[in-house]
Structure formats: structure tokens, C-alpha cells
């Protein structure tokens, strides 16, 4: 059943630009893919690895800024800028993870948060690259090979490909030796160490992989809007990503993707699609979309604790 649903979704996604070539929908869908990628990367660390990191925006932001800086400095090739950005995000994850993973529980949450905020302030002060106003890019990176990233349709497919690779990669990883251990560590860290696993090293590896994937999402995010600003590193962004993962289903393969789609879809729905009976009571409601989003999120936490993907899981083992 799962296989057919996935295949059907993939076919739909591939066909989508042909059916709806308008820029707005393509752009919106691309944005969903990018956030789905970011949320999936967080899901690896958070859902599978059990590491409640409140600083994941730091890696997304690193990817976004490094790739943008390359463009701003005149290096137009995506083949140089993008891998460099992902590598930078992985490095950031290595450093932040190496320090943070020495702590537990709420202290881990706080330290990851602190590091993300540090990066936020650092980037905010980089006047050369826009400071708090952000950096606008003249064009997207060039990929050569006849692929024009400037086209919304092409970008859509690139984002879709990135997401598909990430989800497939997560699927393979979850069933690999590494995936088994990481989930065991999430379940009972002390015992994992006591049967001989080098827990710290394994968690760090998981953290770095998640950071690198987050960096890729950041690259695409900056590229998508041709704009990046320090807010992408703010803790509320980490919070939003976390909300997407929790919404979609923590530790479930499609949790990040489903959560991002639901969150952004909900936001868009409320803001752009007028519902008359609500408007009759409350004329301006669409300007206050986030209240509706917040209410729905709250309802989900209180009444559907397993998230959306969880609700469809029908008793499968997590």
C-alpha cells in the first residue's frame, strides 16, 4: 500500500508543472519541497536520533548564506557554490554537535539554541552581506549542462529531486546498521553504550548528516527566493521546523514532508482562500492567518499526539 501511495505521489509531483504552469503554484510547490527537505533533515536528528536540537536553523542558514555569498562574490557555478555550502553546514554541525552532545536533556536544547542564536547575531552583523536587511541575489546559480535554474519549472524539478533523494536516503539509512543503532540510542542510550556502541560518535555522525541535509535545504531556500536574510537563522525558524516535524510525525519517514506540506498548506489556505462564513463574522481574518495556524497546531497536539503521519500509520511500529 505504502509503495503505491509513494509512486502515485511521485507521478503526481512529476506531472504537476505540466498541469499548472503558473508561476505562483510552481513557486509555492517548490517552497514546500524545500521546507520538506529541511524538516526531513531535522527529523533525522530529532525523530530518529532523539536529539531535540533547537538550533537546526543554524545549518539551514549556513547553507543559505554560504551559497549566497559565493554568488555575491561572482562565483556563479552551482557546482562550486552548492557543495561548498553543504560542506560548510556539515562543518558547523560537526563543531556544534561535538560540543553540544556532551550535554543532555534541556541543556542540550539550550546549547544548540545558543549556538544558533550566536550564528544569527554574527550573520546580522555582516554588513558586507546585507546585515539585518539581508542579501538579494541577481540570479540563481548556473548549473550548466543546459539546465536553467532560473526557470521556475526547472527549479521545481531540482527541488523535487533533492527531496526525493533525501527521503530515499533516510529510508535506506533507517534500515541500515546505523539506523538501527541510532533508534536504539533514542530508545535507551545507556544500554546502547553498555552493549558496546560508541554512542557519542554515532550521535555526532547523525547530527552532522542532518546538518548537511539541512544545509542543502538552505541552499535551495536562498536560491528559490533569490534572497536571504538573518531571520532564516532565528530560533523561531528552528521552532517552525520542529513544529513541522512534530506535526507530520516524529521519527516517521514522511514526517518532515507531510508536516511541511500541512503547515505551509494551512498557512496558505487561511491567508489566500477566503472562507465566507468565517469572513462574515470576522472580516479581516485572513490577515491574521497565524492565529488559525496556531489554533490548528494546538488542537493537533491536544487531540492527535502522533502527528498526521502517525494517524495514518495504523499501528505500524515506529
Amino acid at each position, binding site marked *: 500500500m505504502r509503495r503505491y501511495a509513494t509512486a502515485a505521489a511521485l507521478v503526481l509531483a512529476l506531472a504537476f508543472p505540466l498541469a499548472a504552469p503558473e508561476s505562483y503554484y510552481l513557486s509555492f510547490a517548490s517552497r514546500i519541497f524545500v521546507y520538506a527537505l529541511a524538516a526531513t533533515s531535522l527529523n533525522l536528528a530529532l525523530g530518529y536520533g532523539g536529539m531535540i536540537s533547537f538550533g537546526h536553523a543554524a545549518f539551514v542558514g549556513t547553507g543559505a548564506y554560504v551559497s549566497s555569498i559565493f554568488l555575491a562574490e561572482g562565483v556563479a557555478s552551482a557546482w562550486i557554490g552548492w557543495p561548498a555550502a553543504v560542506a560548510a553546514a556539515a562543518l558547523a554541525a560537526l563543531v556544534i554537535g561535538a560540543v553540544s552532545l556532551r550535554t543532555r536533556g534541556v541543556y542540550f536544547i539550550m546549547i544548540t539554541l545558543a549556538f544558533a542564536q550566536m550564528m544569527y547575531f554574527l550573520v546580522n552583523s555582516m554588513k558586507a552581506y546585507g546585515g539585518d536587511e539581508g542579501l538579494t541575489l541577481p540570479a540563481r546559480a548556473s548549473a550548466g549542462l543546459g539546465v536553467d535554474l532560473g526557470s521556475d519549472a526547472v527549479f521545481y524539478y531540482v527541488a523535487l529531486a533533492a527531496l526525493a533523494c533525501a527521503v530515499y536516503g533516510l529510508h535506506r*539509512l533507517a534500515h541500515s*546498521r546505523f539506523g*538501527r543503532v541510532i533508534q*536504539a540510542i533514542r530508545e535507551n542510550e545507556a*544500554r546502547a553504550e*553498555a*552493549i*558496546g556502541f560508541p554512542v557519542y560518535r554515532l550521535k555526532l555522525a547523525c547530527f552532522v*548528516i542532518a546538518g548537511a541535509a539541512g544545509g542543502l535545504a538552505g541552499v535551495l531556500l536562498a536560491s528559490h527566493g533569490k534572497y536571504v536574510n538573518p531571520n532564516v537563522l532565528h530560533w523561531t525558524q528552528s521552532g517552525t521546523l520542529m513544529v513541522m516535524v512534530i506535526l507530520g510525525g516524529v521519527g516517521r519517514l514522511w514526517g518532515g514532508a507531510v508536516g511541511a506540506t500541512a503547515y505551509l498548506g494551512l498557512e496558505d489556505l487561511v491567508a489566500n482562500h477566503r472562507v465566507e462564513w468565517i469572513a462574515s463574522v470576522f472580516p479581516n481574518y485572513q490577515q491574521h492567518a497565524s492565529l488559525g495556524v496556531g489554533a490548528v497546531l494546538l488542537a493537533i497536539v491536544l487531540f492527535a499526539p502522533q502527528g498526521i503521519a502517525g494517524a495514518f500509520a495504523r499501528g505500524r511500529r515506529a
Partner: protein
Amino acid sequence: MLELSNVSKRFGGVVATDGVALDVRRGEVHALIGPNGAGKTTLIAQIAGDLSCDSGAIMFEGADVTRAPQHERVRSGLARSYQITSIFRRFSVLDNLALAVQARSGSSFSFWRPVAAEPALANEARALAAQIGLAGREEAGAATLAHGEQRALEVGLALATRPKLVLLDEPLAGMGPEESQAMIALVERVRSEVAVLLVEHDMDAVFRLADRVSVLVSGRVIATGLPAAIRADAGVRKAYLGESAAA
């Protein structure tokens, strides 16, 4: 095989372990007994690496492991089981054991190849399940097991790492008579392959299994010797006055 010299640990003002000297010989079952609060679990934790010692040395197979991290001690053959069951509750029995097998065989930094492609892990896990008396229960979720079965899995996890010396912390805790017999039989089965340091309150088990017995009182070893000698020792009897012991 295992040698402790002058091992000490304190928590704030409380001295939990006070200059303990202890040794375990190859092939022996060495029981560690003592009244409640004597510090037996704390000592086990220090030997295994869950806790660090404040002072003293722990030598295992000739190597100094006093500062070695726990997972390294396990890799060199020193494993423990826990008094309070600590298993992977959301995994099946088979997956629990397969994990331990995975830990000791090859690297876990393998991200692509599915575990299912390694039948050796599952096969060895199945054999282990049979050895610990859980044949037929492999697919059961660990959380659904009865208490005795969980204790068997608890010990099984330690044994799955193919240790040279295993530290069993009250394996019979909370068990009824039938389950206790099964656990004692399990220790009898494995004693030829692995040395055992056994912490127990159940004196029946202790005197059936032990080659030697050490008595821990208030963090100090007050006596070590053959079971019969310990049984007769006046100091030991005094320490146990008031404790219900099947003497």
C-alpha cells in the same frame, strides 16, 4: 582476569565504595553479596564503566581500564546486566539481541546497506534467544514480555556481546521460584564460556553457583573465600543479622 585495587567512590558526603580490593579468576563464578545499601550496584557500575571511580585501579585481562569508556570495556569483553531491567522496549526480542550482536561484529557506520541483508545477525540472535530460554518469543515486543522473560533478555543482551567476563546485577530480582530455576540453569550453561561476577540476594542461587564469595558491607569487602567458609564466618553472620537469608 579482573582485578580491583583500592577502588573508591563517594557521592557528596556519602562513601559508596571504600577501598575495594576484589579479583575474579578465569572460568569462575564469583558471587558478591552484602546487605542492602552495601554499594554492590555502585561497584558493578564502576567496573562496567557506568560510573567513574574517584580512586583506585581496575585491571581487566592485564589492561588498565579504570579510565576507559564503557563501550571500549564491552569491546574488550567486559559486559554487564542491570538490576533494574534496561532493554530496548520498543524493539522485538530478536532485534534486541541482534543489536548486541551488531555491536560486537563490524562497524555501525554503515548507512546504506539494509540490516536485513545480513542474515548472520538474525541467525545468531535466534540462537541466543534459544539459549536464554526465549525461543518462540523472538518476535514479541520487549515491552510485552513477562517479568521473568524480560530478566532473561536483560542477561541475554549482556551475553550477546560474547564477553569474557559478565557482571550480573541481581539477575533473579523479582522472580518467582520457576523463573529463578531457569535463570540459575542459564548461568550454569554459560559458565564454561564466560567468567561471572554475580551480585545476588538469593542465597540459594549464590551457594549453588558460586566458586567463591565476597561480602560487601558499607562499601568495603569484609571477607572473600569459599562458600562454605563464608557461610560459617562470624563477621559475615553479624553483618547479616536481621536480614532474611536462607543460611
